[in-house]
């Protein structure tokens, strides 16, 4: 229990955003393994590949070509083999309806992409930490709702 390895997958079609994301985790002193995919289809392919190790948290951009974040969310939630994965929505939208809808559909975390790199690091750190609490302190994942 010394090393907290957390597997993280980000699905985002925006190259800059992917860069911010990985850079932020690089700078954070948390042991994480981050891999990124470029769209929803790539994400689902990755998850459904039996060779893949399933991540602990998926960060999901809502607005993606081919398969939107919302569609991915529904597919992931419909498959019980993904039931242990925490879903974090990672989007530009701050529409209350979007937020509530994704929560209702089973997302655990909603992150409005921050416009400050420092803030991004803060947010990601908090997410991972809280997630860690949920994993290690026997909390009910169904009640895990976090909006940042």
């Amino acid at each position, binding site marked *: 229990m010394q*090393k907290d390895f957390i597997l993280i997958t980000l699905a985002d079609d925006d190259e800059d955003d992917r860069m911010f994301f990985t850079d932020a985790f690089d700078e954070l002193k948390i042991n994480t393994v981050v891999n990124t995919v470029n769209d929803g289809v790539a994400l689902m392919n990755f998850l459904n590949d039996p060779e893949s190790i399933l991540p602990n948290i998926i960060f999901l951009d809502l607005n993606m070509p081919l398969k939107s974040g919302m569609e991915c969310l529904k597919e992931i939630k419909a498959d019980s083999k993904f039931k*242990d994965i925490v879903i974090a929505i990672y989007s530009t939208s701050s529409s209350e309806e979007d937020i509530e809808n994704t929560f209702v*559909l089973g997302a655990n975390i909603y992150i409005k992409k921050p416009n400050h790199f420092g803030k991004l690091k803060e947010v990601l750190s908090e997410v991972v930490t809280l997630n*860690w*609490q949920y994993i*290690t302190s026997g909390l009910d994942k169904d009640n895990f709702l976090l909006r940042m």
Partner: protein
Amino acid sequence: MKLFLKPDTAFLIKKILEEKLAVFNVKYNLINTNEILFLESIDTATYEKIAVVLNEYGFEIIENQKNIIVQKIKETIIEMIFNEEAPAVKSSVYLAEKLNHSYGYLSNLFSEVTYTSIENFIIIQKIEYVKKLITLHNLTLTEIAFKLNYSSVAHLSSQFKNTTGITPSAFQRIIKKRNEITNQNIN
């Protein structure tokens, strides 16, 4: 005749650990042959049982005093909250007395291991308990605030909001809608 074996120690260890841990029905990740990451809370009793079982196969658990103490802190806090007994003293004093360490030491240790402060952990646990009360017992916020010794509903509300980013009523609404969807799917 001689047999030359090239034992796959990593495989062997993995096999044995999987076999033995299966009994305890816990989620875990094998990070490598000398590290197990438990994906859920392990109480001290289970922890000791696991230690005994693994000992039989020569696995010696490198006693991590820090981890044990952190685990004890967590258990004390959870017990404190779920029993709804407001300690007569501040939680810091209570923890220090119960665990026989100075609060400063406990606090530093806790932050080092969990990346969270004890205070923060208490709040998280409290809010978790609030969530349970909302979802399972259908209590109103006023009742919950009273039950958990919050000075006002507003205080409870704002703490909930600060911790989770959403208001208690939004939480209530979301859980309700989720249940409706799952009920629909079942029907």
